[in-house]
């Protein structure tokens, strides 16, 4: 009962915010509850009957979280999870409020949270998790984190909240070093790729530092093979073929991460068959984004969040895609760290836009990409891009950073995706 008044205020604010801006769940209710009942978040997160599972790391955490939730639900476990946009404390509290009853209780046996590696260390202070899964360490947003050591340090602080197990990517040398420092009594579970899968990865795995040795199948879940949008996971000597939501080794790695984490959470109750069935039934995704129907045509949205996802997503755009709009917004203060990415496969970009359009054009040109037009006004760029005749082959594709994605959605009247 202690949080009832604060919850009431938060819920009323949420309703008011919805009335003013339909479809717009904001972080404001969370902000208010965090202010008037600062213990609510900690206490609620620590209070799920079968515990809290946290997924963090530089990239792949949202896909891994979605996969993990699907596997756990296939085992009849009821789950509270956060939309990937709500992984800082206000957003998280708001997400809890969505589900909470008037006393602040949130239904669910297990909470599965995707946690931003920067804010996660802060949010997790004083919160007890059962299991923490870590995807990888990449240099993400240099302005914020400066370097890999700092990212690794923040992940170590999140991992330190795990009371039962840490699940980590054995191919990531930073995470392997972190495994050596896990508290006594906390189990370490691993996932990783086979030597053959690594050899077939045209640009490696994207980790800041890849471990010298591949994971021994006796020590964890191994991605044995990847073939387009399917893969074979090797667990305890048994091969488990599984479908993936899209082509690409990183989806197979995310699947192995979700599989290993689900096994750590469920213990004896875990069924490998149920797990791969759940993984195989996750709806397909396009790039990291989605296929959207706008103004009577299909458009692929491709979100670029860090150099590794940028490279993977560029590689996933079919060669010969005729019409591409490329937008970098003010969220990227210094685009330098995108320069190591090889974007030459794009070949030609119809319009470069966003407030950092000139920087983006420079970067693309030196990769050998032809640019038809620069239009800093994103609204006009979108209108002209969508008005252009349909491509002879492929789908119109918009590659954007988070800020440009928000502006694009607002301009086109699309509600925020999960």
């Amino acid at each position, binding site marked *: 009962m202690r949080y009832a008044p604060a919850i009431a205020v938060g819920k009323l604010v949420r309703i008011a915010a919805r009335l003013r801006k339909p479809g717009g769940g904001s972080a404001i209710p969370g902000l208010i509850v965090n202010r008037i009942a600062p213990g609510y978040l900690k206490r609620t997160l620590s209070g799920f009957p079968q515990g809290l599972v946290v997924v963090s790391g530089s990239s792949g955490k949202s896909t891994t979280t979605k996969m993990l939730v699907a596997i756990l639900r296939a085992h009849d476990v009821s789950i509270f999870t956060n939309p990937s946009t709500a992984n800082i404390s206000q957003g998280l509290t708001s997400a809890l409020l969505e589900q909470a009853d008037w006393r602040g209780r949130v239904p669910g046996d297990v909470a599965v949270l995707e946690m931003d590696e920067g804010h996660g260390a802060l949010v997790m202070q004083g919160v007890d998790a059962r299991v923490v899964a870590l995807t990888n360490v990449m*240099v993400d947003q*240099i*302005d914020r984190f*400066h*370097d*890999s*050591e700092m990212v690794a340090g923040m992940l170590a602080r999140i991992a330190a909240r795990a009371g039962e197990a840490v699940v980590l990517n054995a191919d990531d040398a930073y995470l392997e070093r972190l495994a050596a420092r896990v508290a006594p009594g906390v189990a370490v579970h691993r996932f990783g790729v086979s030597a053959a899968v690594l050899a077939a990865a045209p640009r490696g795995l994207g980790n800041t530092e890849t471990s010298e040795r591949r994971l021994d199948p006796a020590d964890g879940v191994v991605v044995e093979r990847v073939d387009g949008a399917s893969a074979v996971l090797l667990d305890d000597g048994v091969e488990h073929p599984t479908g993936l939501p899209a082509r690409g080794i990183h989806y197979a790695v995310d699947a192995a991460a979700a599989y290993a984490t689900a096994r750590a959470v469920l213990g004896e109750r875990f069924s490998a068959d149920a797990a791969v069935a759940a993984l195989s039934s996750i709806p397909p995704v396009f790039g990291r984004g989605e296929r959207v129907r706008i103004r009577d045509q299909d458009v692929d949205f491709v979100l670029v969040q860090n150099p590794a996802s940028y490279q993977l997503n560029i590689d996933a755009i079919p060669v010969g895609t005729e019409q591409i709009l490329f937008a970098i917004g003010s969220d990227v203060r*210094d*685009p*330098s*760290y*995108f*320069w*190591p990415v090889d974007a030459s496969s794009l070949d030609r970009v119809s319009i470069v836009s966003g*407030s*950092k*359009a*000139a*920087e983006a*054009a*420079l*970067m693309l*040109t*030196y*990769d*050998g990409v032809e640019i038809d037009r*620069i239009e800093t006004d994103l609204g006009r760029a979108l209108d002209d891009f969508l008005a252009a005749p349909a491509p002879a082959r492929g789908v119109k594709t918009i590659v954007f950073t988070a800020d440009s994605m928000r502006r694009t959605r607002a301009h086109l009247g699309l509600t925020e995706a999960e």
Partner: protein
Amino acid sequence: MTFTIVSLLPGTQNTNGDAQNATVLERRAEWAGIAARTVLVERAAELPAEIDAIVLGSGSDASLVRSRDTLRTMHDELRRWGTEGVPILGIGTGWELLSWGIEHRDGSAIEGLGILPGRAVPRDGRVTGDAVVATARFGQLVGFENHARDYVGAEASPLGRLRAGEGNGRASGQEGVVMGSVIGTHLHGPVLAKNPAFADALLRIMAERRGIAYEPGERAATVDGYAAAARAAQLRAAGIEVDPAA
């Protein structure tokens, strides 16, 4: 004749896309009708016998000693090329490794290769932001800096005078260091793309050493239009009035 541009230790020394400065030189040479190639070098054995330019980018502090040890195995070649006038561009910690050394806050130090005068010393807090540098040889340079150390001992031969940013720090008002054609700077990322006059100055040195002429190609004019727009935006962000002639 083909320009051979060496990208040195791109595996560890390329946090900010500094290594892509080699690509910038290569492309601009090609646009000017000069054949060019970039060679990625991680070990001394991979060094080509004859080279025209070297780019050494910035890495994380954890790899400082490892990178220094590898660079030591190439010390004689680097010193010789530097003396012969081969452009060598060191950025961030790559520059620091070419200096006399790097001092840490706890009093420990890493000895550098001693190819550039001066040393990196601790500063209070990291500096991250726009930097604008007026130079005599390369025009006004616009870029980003992100470093946790100052640089002392460059006072006699800095790259240029700061118009914005922290640069070498210690209230020096200066940025970078230059010895002949060996250049150290905090301006990270694709500094040669953002500052085409800087790139062309290096290409002219490279051409002159080969006894040929360099004039920027037609394609460069379009691309340098992008650079001009990016520079103008960054100068505005840095609070500097944009001079169309600069």
